[in-house]
Each structure stands twice: as structure tokens, then as C-alpha cells.
């Protein structure tokens, strides 16, 4: 641990600190008992920040601080679900395609390429607008996952293709290991390091897509997410009224979270390639 801290690039350290900070907000602070911040009209409206309401209240009488904590919790949860589905499916498709080869490889790659090329946002818009009103968090996560698997499967496939020709894989094969065993014991460890960085990237993309849909009013209306919080503030003219304690917390939280995650990803990639001695 100490050695890691000495060797890790500054980016990785900063990213790690920011990400852990948000994880604590979303999954530890979130569980501290507090009044449900969402219901309207049970608090005074338009309160400035105080010791009772750290960031004040909205024009609907909602507690902004706890709303933000809940938004961070929900956005991260959606991001993790989507990233998990996308990474698992992507790694599987990529490995199959790379190792089996032939016609199956060509068909899988054609479908994958289509999903890489199709502009995802319009299709997501169409799918969510069809389930307007009836969508739930899980359904939204599934829809977002439709576009999360294609890129990783492409990357994993090219990784599998180069792997296939490496000496230690040949050794494994010549010593009588089956295809599945080779994939699990020899290839997966390599794929895992890469998958971790892809997982974080997919989390970031999923949160961005969800907030994009929220701005269009297509995220579930009762879901407290970072995107929806910004959208509500815009809807109730928080900018025009100069209610900075309302509009700025979700914007700043999103920016810091994204920059933190991005530094974590690039820093982690740098650190891994440094460790491999390249």
C-alpha cells in the first residue's frame, strides 16, 4: 500500500481520493438517518443555507443537501449496473469472437460495429420516450446497457487476437489445456486489468447518458438523480432567480465526479502500463 502510494502517478491519487469521497457520500452518508428530502411543501420554501438545511431548500420546499446525496447514490448505482452488464457481455462477446473466429466472428463483429457507429443518444431517446411515465430505474439501466457492451467487446476481441499468438498461450495449449481452461487461467487475468478501467469508463458514460436523458425529461420523473436535479432546477427557473445554492451543487458535483473518475481511469492505465514496464 505504501509502495503503491509512492509510485502511483498524481492523477491516480487525486482520482482515487475524489472517487472514494463520492462513494462515501453515496453509500455511507446516504444511510445516515434523515428526513426524506423529496416530498414538496413540508419545509419552508427558498431557504438560504443553514445548519438545519446545509444547502437550503428549493422553491418546492425540498432539502437540497439530502436531495444531492440521494442523487449521487442513484446516479452511481445506475452507472454501476450499466457498467457491470456492459463489461460482462462485452468481455464474453469479445472473447468468443476472438477465439472461435470464422463466420461467427464476422457476424458478431458486424453487429458490434453497428452498435459502435449508431449514434446512441437518439436511439436511447426513442426507447425512453416510448416508456415515458412507466420507466423504472432498472428498466432505464437495461436500456442504457444496450449501448455499453459494443466498445469493450471490440477491444477485448483485438486483445484476444494478439493473445492467441503469444508464446505462453501456445505453451498452455501444447501442454494439453482445453480452450475454456486457457481462456479462464491465461487470458482472463489480462482481460481483468483492462476490464476494470473499462468498467469505470462505462460508469462515467452511463451517468452522462442518464443525465442527458434527464435534461430531455426522459428519466423517470420520481428518480432523484444528478441529471434530474439539474433539470428540475432549470424547470423552476433557478438560474433566472439567481438561486445558486440550488443549481450549483448538482452541477459542481457532476463536474467533480466526472473529472475524478476520468483521472482515476487514465491514472490507472498509466500505472498499469508502468508496472508492466512499458
Amino acid at each position: 500500500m505504501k509502495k503503491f502510494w509512492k509510485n502511483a502517478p498524481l492523477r491516480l491519487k487525486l482520482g482515487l481520493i475524489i472517487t472514494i469521497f463520492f462513494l462515501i457520500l453515496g453509500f455511507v452518508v446516504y444511510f445516515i438517518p434523515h428526513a426524506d428530502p423529496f416530498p414538496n411543501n413540508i419545509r419552508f420554501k427558498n431557504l438560504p443555507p443553514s445548519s438545519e438545511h446545509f444547502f437550503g431548500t428549493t422553491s418546492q420546499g425540498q432539502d437540497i443537501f439530502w436531495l444531492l446525496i440521494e442523487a449521487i447514490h442513484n446516479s452511481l448505482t445506475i452507472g454501476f449496473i450499466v457498467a457491470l452488464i456492459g463489461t460482462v457481455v462485452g468481455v464474453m462477446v469479445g472473447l468468443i469472437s476472438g477465439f472461435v473466429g470464422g463466420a461467427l466472428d464476422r457476424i458478431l463483429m458486424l453487429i458490434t460495429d453497428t452498435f459502435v457507429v449508431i449514434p446512441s443518444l437518439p436511439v436511447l431517446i426513442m426507447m425512453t420516450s416510448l416508456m415515458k411515465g412507466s420507466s423504472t430505474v432498472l428498466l432505464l439501466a437495461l436500456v442504457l446497457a444496450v449501448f455499453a457492451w459494443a466498445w469493450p467487446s471490440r477491444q477485448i476481441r483485438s486483445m484476444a487476437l494478439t493473445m492467441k499468438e503469444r508464446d505462453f498461450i501456445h505453451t498452455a495449449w501444447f501442454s494439453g489445456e482445453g480452450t475454456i481452461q486457457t481462456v479462464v487461467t491465461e487470458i482472463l487475468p489480462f482481460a481483468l486489468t483492462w476490464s476494470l478501467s473499462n468498467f469505470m469508463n462505462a460508469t462515467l458514460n452511463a451517468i452522462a447518458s442518464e443525465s442527458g436523458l434527464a435534461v430531455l425529461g426522459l428519466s423517470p420523473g420520481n428518480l432523484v438523480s444528478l441529471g434530474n436535479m439539474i433539470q428540475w432546477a432549470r424547470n423552476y427557473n433557478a438560474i433566472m432567480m439567481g438561486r445558486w445554492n440550488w443549481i450549483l451543487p448538482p452541477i459542481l458535483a457532476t463536474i467533480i465526479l466526472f473529472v475524478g473518475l476520468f483521472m482515476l481511469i487514465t491514472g490507472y492505465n498509466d500505472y498499469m502500463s508502468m508496472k508492466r514496464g512499458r
Partner: protein
Amino acid sequence: MKFWKYLSLRLVTWALTILIGVTFVFFIPRMFPSDPVEAMIGQMQARSGQMDPAAKEALRTSLRVQFGLEGSLISQYLTFLWKGLLHFDFGPSLMSYPTPCTEIIARNLPYTVGLSMITTIFAWLIGNFIGLLAGFRKNKTSSKILEAIAIFIYPIPYFILALVLQIIFAYILGWFPLQATIQYNNGTMAFVTSLLRSSVLPALSILLLGTGWWIISMKSLSSTTSEEDFVLYARYRGLSEGRIGYQYVFRNSILTQITALAMSLGGVFNGSIMTEIIFGYPGVGTLIQGAILQSDYNMILGCITISIVAIATCTLIADLIYPFIDPRIRYS
């Protein structure tokens, strides 16, 4: 001869990509339980009271025809491929009935294409230039600062950056309009000025994010290239730094960036949609937003089909240009 094989293979992939994408887009709405025709009739009845059953039936049939929902799924699909994909005819728009969707899309598309094309080209040029300098001279403080700025800007989602620019430059400073107000296109100076004034902030937000990405990727590419043996050899030969930078590092790193440009177009289009919506810029993004609000499915389907065709075609063009730039390519 090899080139023709490469070209025909690439064309087949292009056609299949579009076909798969469009098929996906066609079948999804039909898998959902919601029926746009029943929803519309319900809305009409809510507005103007119950209808005569016979009139309702006639309305239902005519609406089903206009939505392309008449006949079996296969015949609907073939009609859609024939009319929609080959003739770009998506039926009448329901928001502004009976104007055809295509006419409205054609009116909005130039704004989106203009905005995203110009900003992407500039972002690519500026980003790669700065990225090259930062990667080639990576131990300079200025390089580190430039990269740090890029890392801070790039991960921010498009609409958040757009919102921040809107708050700072339009609301607090008041230099630009909060919402795009573009005058009717009659070719006068008033139109051009209003277009430029309204385009500055949307263009700036797409430009900043794009530049950030090109700086980051070019920096890492050129810093690996400048550690290659042939660059070291060029140094020992005593070539000037400028010549090494241009002939050895730049020319080897830029190739990857050309492919990357083709791959990035889908993302730029997504970003352009979000940015347009924040600023009310009259492009395809704002059109899609309006179509969603009014459940105009013909329009949504039309916008998506056209954007899939456009982006697949841009990717194809970039792929076809590539062999002309890189002499080493083997058309594989």
C-alpha cells in the same frame, strides 16, 4: 485491384451497418406495448369529447396508414425500408401536420451539420497541434499545464459545460443571448449576425470538449512516438527539433488520429443534440426534443434514420480516405 476489393468490402459493411441499425430502430417501438394511434385518439377525445364510433374507426384507419402501421409486420418493414430508407419519406409530421417530416428535417439539418462539422474540424486541428507540442516536449511546464487543463475539461458532459457557459456568458455577463434567436433566413445581414451571435456559445462548448479530447489522445500518441528508436536516430543525426517534430513524430502519430476522427463522429452528434437543446438552437436536437414532447413518432424515426445514415457515411468516407494518406496500408 486490391483497392477495389477493399472498397467493395467496405461498401458492403457500410450498407449492412445501416441496415442493422435501421432494423433495430424499426422493431423496438413495435415491441413496446404502447400504441401511438390509441394514445393520439385518447388525447383527441380528452380535448374535444367522445367521438362517433364510425368516425373514430375511420380516424383510426387513416392514422394507422400515416404511421405506417397498416398490414403485417413484414410488409410494414418492407414499406419502411423502401419509403424511409431509400426515399427518406417518413410520412407527415404530427407536430406540424401535414408538412412532411423530411421537409422539416431538411430545414433543421444544416444547423446541426454546420455547428458540429465546423467545431469538430477546428477542435481536431487545434487539439492535435497542442497535443503534439505537449507530447513532443513533455517535460516542459507549459505542456503539463495544457494537459492538466484538457484533463479537467474533457470528462465534463456536453450539456453541463453548455449550462456553465450559458450561466457565465449569457446570464451573468450578458454577452450572448440566453436562448438562440435566429431571424428568418432571408439572406440579409440581420440573419447572419443573429446566426453568428446565437452560435458562439453552442460552438464554444462543443469546441472545448473536442479540443480537450484531441489534446489528451495526441499527447499520449506523440509522446510514445518520440521515444521510438527512429526519433532517437534522427536526433543523433543532428536534425533540427522542428524537423523531427514534423517529419518523424507528427506524420507517424496523425494517422491514428484520422481513424479516431471517423470513430468520434457519433459522439459529436450526441453532444451536438444536447448542446442544441440547452441553447434552443434550431437543429435536429431541438427538433427531436419537440417531437418527443408531442409524441411525433414519424419525426423521431425520421431524425434517427437520417442520423444513422449520415454518421455511417461519414465513417465510410474517412475509412476510404485513409489508404491514400497512409502508404503502408495493405487494404486488409
